[in-house]
């Protein structure tokens, strides 16, 4: 090892490096500023626009969900405005990032209410964030349409809070019914210790008895775990007919791969949840995903609505426009966001473009037969989700794509 001291050269080197760093940072921030941000040009905007807020997880753990949600909302608002808006007024959505943190979601809600004076709020992406917003929503009396699938969102009832995804109290009985018909009586649970898995697990444990199904093993894993072989080895020892996993992230792909290794013959069928309806899951699991079964809405296979039906038209239209604009087919989360803005736009049309928040809330609650991409929404004073088992189908992954199970 040499002892050369690059005195003069070292100084120049430092200067060059500092300059390079500054240039790189400036270039990066310029790139960030020029990132595509749609300016909703509104031909109908003679009058002041109708202001709505959206609290989304654009960074942090749920960034993969929040970004497609924003895409869907932006695209849909642009379409509504291009078509003349609502009663001659365009819609303006103010976006807030909650960084997947309930406290930030709450602060964002305050900002939307106090600063922007929004009429209603879409959000949040996650259940925890949605619940964190509630105190401010209640105080301001503003309707909230959440895209989080947690049971708590509408089960802990609030007259101002609505929910677009299929809640677990619909998904779980639907899947159990399918299992019963398939002759499955013993299952093992392998659930995420985060909010999504905990919610699903509880509903499953509450409901299994009604369908004559027994839970023989009840294992969990944590977000970010890299191997679930240990849990699956324990499960395999109990020889259940099926393993029901509740995992929305990349852990789902690890589970099916580990299961395939331990059980190459496939004596245990693997079931999942709507959160597995993402192409990333199939990419990650590869061949191990074959035969994987889960319940979700018909957005993943609009053909199942029956060609020519209104629902088919709505779904294919949305999928086509989204794919064209963003170069990627929409996932279920984009669908939940489309439904949220559709519910609000539909309610605004009925309530009139000059409605206040209270009228808007009443109009949302009166939504009937609204065809979205997640299903047909029939809301009422006691049901703030409005979807039923009729909106769900079972999917099985075959040949690297999900197919509807008849």
């Amino acid at each position, binding site marked *: 090892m040499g002892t050369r001291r690059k005195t003069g050269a070292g100084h120049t080197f430092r200067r060059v490096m500092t300059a390079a760093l500054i240039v790189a*940072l400036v270039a*990066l*921030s310029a790139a*960030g*500023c020029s*990132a595509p*941000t749609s*300016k909703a040009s509104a031909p109908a905007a003679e009058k002041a626009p109708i202001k709505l807020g959206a609290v989304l997880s*654009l*960074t942090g753990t749920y960034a993969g969900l929040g970004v497609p949600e924003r895409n869907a909302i932006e695209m849909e608002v642009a379409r509504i405005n291009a078509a003349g808006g609502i009663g001659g007024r365009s819609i303006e959505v*103010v*976006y*807030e*990032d909650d*960084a*997947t*943190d*309930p*406290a*930030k979601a*709450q*602060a964002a809600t*305050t*900002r939307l209410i*106090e*600063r922007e004076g929004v009429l209603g709020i879409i959000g949040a992406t996650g*259940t*925890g964030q949605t*619940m*964190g917003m*509630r*105190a401010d929503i209640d105080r301001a009396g503003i309707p909230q349409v959440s895209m989080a699938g*947690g049971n*708590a969102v509408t089960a*802990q009832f609030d007259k101002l809070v609505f929910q677009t995804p299929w809640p677990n109290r619909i998904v779980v009985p639907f899947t159990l019914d399918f299992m019963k018909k398939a002759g499955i009586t013993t299952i093992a649970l392998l659930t995420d*210790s*985060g*909010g999504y898995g*905990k*919610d699903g697990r509880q509903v499953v444990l509450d409901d299994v008895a009604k369908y004559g199904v027994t839970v023989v093993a009840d294992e969990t894993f944590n977000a970010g775990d890299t191997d679930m072989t240990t849990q699956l080895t324990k499960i395999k020892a109990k020889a259940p007919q099926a393993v029901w996993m509740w995992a929305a992230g990349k852990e789902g792909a690890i589970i099916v791969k580990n299961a395939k290794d331990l059980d190459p013959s496939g004596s245990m069928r693997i079931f999942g949840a709507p959160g597995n309806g993402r192409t990333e899951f199939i990419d990650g699991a590869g061949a191990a995903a074959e035969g994987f079964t889960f319940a979700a809405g018909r957005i993943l296979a609009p053909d199942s609505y029956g060609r020519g039906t209104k629902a088919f038209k709505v779904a294919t239209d949305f999928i086509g426009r989204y794919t064209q604009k963003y170069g990627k087919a929409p996932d279920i989360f984009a669908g939940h966001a489309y439904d949220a803005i559709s519910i609000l736009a539909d309610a605004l049309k009925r309530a009139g473009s000059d409605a206040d928040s209270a009228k808007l809330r009443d109009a949302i609650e009166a939504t009937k037969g609204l065809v979205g991409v997640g299903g047909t929404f029939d809301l009422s004073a006691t049901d703030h989700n409005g979807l039923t088992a009729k909106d769900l189908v079972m999917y099985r992954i075959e040949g690297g794509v999900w197919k509807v199970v008849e």
Partner: protein
Amino acid sequence: MSDRTRRFAQSGGAVLAAAAVLALPLVVTDRYLLKVLTFVGLNVIIVAGMAVLFGYAGQVSLGHAAFTGIGAYTCGFLTARAGWPWMTAVAAAVALSALGGLALALPSLRLRGHYLAMATLGFSVIANIVFVEAKSLTGGNDGLSGIPFASVGPVRLDTPWSNYLLVWGAAVVVVALVSGIVRGRPGRAMAALQGSEMGAMACGVDPVRVKVTAFTLSAGLAGLSGALFASAVGFVSPTSFALETSIILLAMVVLGGTRSVAGPVLAAVALTLLTYIDGLIPGLSKTTVAALQDWKGDIYGVVIVGVMLFVPAGMAGLARAWRRKSRSVTGAGEAA
């Protein structure tokens, strides 16, 4: 300027700053701004305690978010589910967090540096698992909601203004208290320990007692902040007390500098405000706000690295250097 007049000017400045902070709601009508400033005050309370722990007692903690969580859940559960009066619940929250600090400090006495950091970090992660799993007490992942506002007798603090005053009132008291501690006997004992543990022991300083006291105090203050957070926000969930929060808190203390309370407090104010920067600068276009939100992580990282690169001794070090300079200009003879 003599030392006495300097000290007089300093305490005068502190009183003025406190008065200005508490008088702010008279001029600020923006409820969002008040909410953000309330969050700032909550961090100030935690960081003031950590300034003693790190800056004076030389202990590194990567687990203080856990104590905040213990305080928040205790206060939330006791007021929302058990129907305790607010004051009693807050007292219980502080006591329980302090107890948690004591329980962690005692076995950690032999640990130094990175091993202490690991112990506190491990405690923080375990506490978070408990927050998630103890569903009947904490509400699990869905969080604990419906926590009532702070109330003393018939007075209910249910406006952003009153919550701001509550939190900043507590923050001012805490900062004053902590400053008193570090200037008095305990502070000198800690300083002696930092110099030489053996030497300090020879002078009758009990290192065990000093370290355990500092840890317990800072944990109790973190718990107080948590309790106030629970009643001001009305909702508590585990993600607010995750490891990242502990790391940010430590960054605030280090950015503030050692042997100072004002430095870390200012750093807490600055870094907390930075999180809400896109909502605080008036007149930004929608595109700029979106870009700021998108690039917040990068900006935060660059600021932390930048401050440490250019002001490695932290804000307190900067102030000390500046004072030294002005002193040498006005004449070295006066300062002893």
